[in-house]
């Protein structure tokens, strides 16, 4: 069990949901300057294969539906990193009619990176922090989602049609 936990912390496959401007910070993170692959973090193509959902930037209602769907398709244990101020409180879209303000109302977030934009160093730092949390068994947000499923669904239903967008289980 310990081995599994260790390998979970050392091998994070990431699905970066590039919703906004945050996406530009990821190429330097991946490529030779910062090279996140040395920590075992790789970008993956589909939510089925990923452990980590990285939400880079603001989420409009339209995108949130897709994020929730992607999150629900990921196998557990799964982790979410909110990236940039927009995921914390809406950031520069704080009074926009179409951008959600607090991501954690809709899906559980393990870790936020604040800043607008956070630099690649901050991203790497967040990854390392998440790694520590997983190893210690603190990154349990995915359990929260399963336990408080009704609550999350209620929050989601306030902004979009949950029936249509949830994954049928």
């Amino acid at each position, binding site marked *: 069990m310990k*081995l*599994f*936990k*260790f*390998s*979970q912390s*050392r*091998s994070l*496959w990431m699905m970066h949901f590039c919703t906004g401007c945050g996406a530009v910070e990821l190429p330097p993170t991946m*490529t*030779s300057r910062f*090279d996140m*692959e*040395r*920590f*075992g973090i790789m970008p*993956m*193509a*589909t*939510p*089925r*294969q*990923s*452990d980590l959902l990285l939400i880079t930037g603001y989420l409009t209602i339209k995108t949130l539906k897709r994020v929730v769907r992607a999150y629900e*398709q*990921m*196998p*557990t*244990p799964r982790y979410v990193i909110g990236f940039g101020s927009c995921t914390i409180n809406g950031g520069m879209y704080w009074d926009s009619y179409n951008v959600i303000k607090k991501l954690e109302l809709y899906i559980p977030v393990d870790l936020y990176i604040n800043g607008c934009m956070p630099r690649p160093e901050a991203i790497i730092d967040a990854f390392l922090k998440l790694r520590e949390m997983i190893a210690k068994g603190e990154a349990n947000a995915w359990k929260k989602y399963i336990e408080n499923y009704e609550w999350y669904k209620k929050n989601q239903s306030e902004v979009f049609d949950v029936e249509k967008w949830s994954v049928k289980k």
Partner: protein
Amino acid sequence: MSILYFFLYLLLVTIVGLLYMGVARKVTAHVQNRYGPPIYQPILDVLKLFGKKDAASHGVMHTLGPVIAYTGIGATLLFLPLGNHTPLLHFNGDLFVVLYLLVVGPLGMALGAGESANSNATIGIARALSMMLGYEIIFFMATLPVFYANHTASIYKVILAQGTFPKWAAIMYPISFIAGLFAVQGLLGEKPFELVIAPHEIASGPMVEYGGKFLGFLQIWHAVGIIVETGLFVDIFFGPQNILWFFVGTFFVFLASVLVNAVMPRFRIEQAVRFYWGIPLLFAILGILQVYLWR
């Protein structure tokens, strides 16, 4: 006793294959001026995938797909000599048994991916099968002269018939050897023939609906596949080696393929198939002519 022996055998090959994948990632990273993950990274990946709590299954065939894939490659391994190390069942089969068992894996995965009802997966499968019209035939034609010249269809006998260094088939039949190298690139699915997976285009193709332990299975399938495919090539072209040199041989064949992979873009499917029907086919036919002339 031999069952236990086989377990160890399979475990060894799986781990070595995973380490090869790690090396591939490290080498690619260095080519791209990065540091890269540790070499044992794929092992961690596989452990993580098997430790996942739940994986989505779309039905019986979807579930069995990766299992059949691993079955096929594991069964192939039993018939494949690792160098001059006698395979467990070498007396029971030959090249064609190995070639046909080698297809069981992709077929299983194809059936599994097909049931997921995802068109990305099926496009990937359609590509994989079409690619076989390219590389598989070249690989076959490249190895034929060796078997024909040694008058056997058994891989083990071909190994023994070759003799040591200067009598390697690679040196005796250099044209076929080059054709074979072309084919190995496609056999391993490395760039520029990576279009079956093509993550940016069809979202990792056949694996699109596989997560958790299914993906773990596909990883170890790929790991054993690397050894089996390069091993077949090494067996046929590099003569009798002890098991250590056998792994060195497979490693260098794999390394060559990875280095090409690191700097190549991706072909379109019809380009890839047509590529194989061009220069590699010419080499393969010339190799066959060579064996006719020598005999």
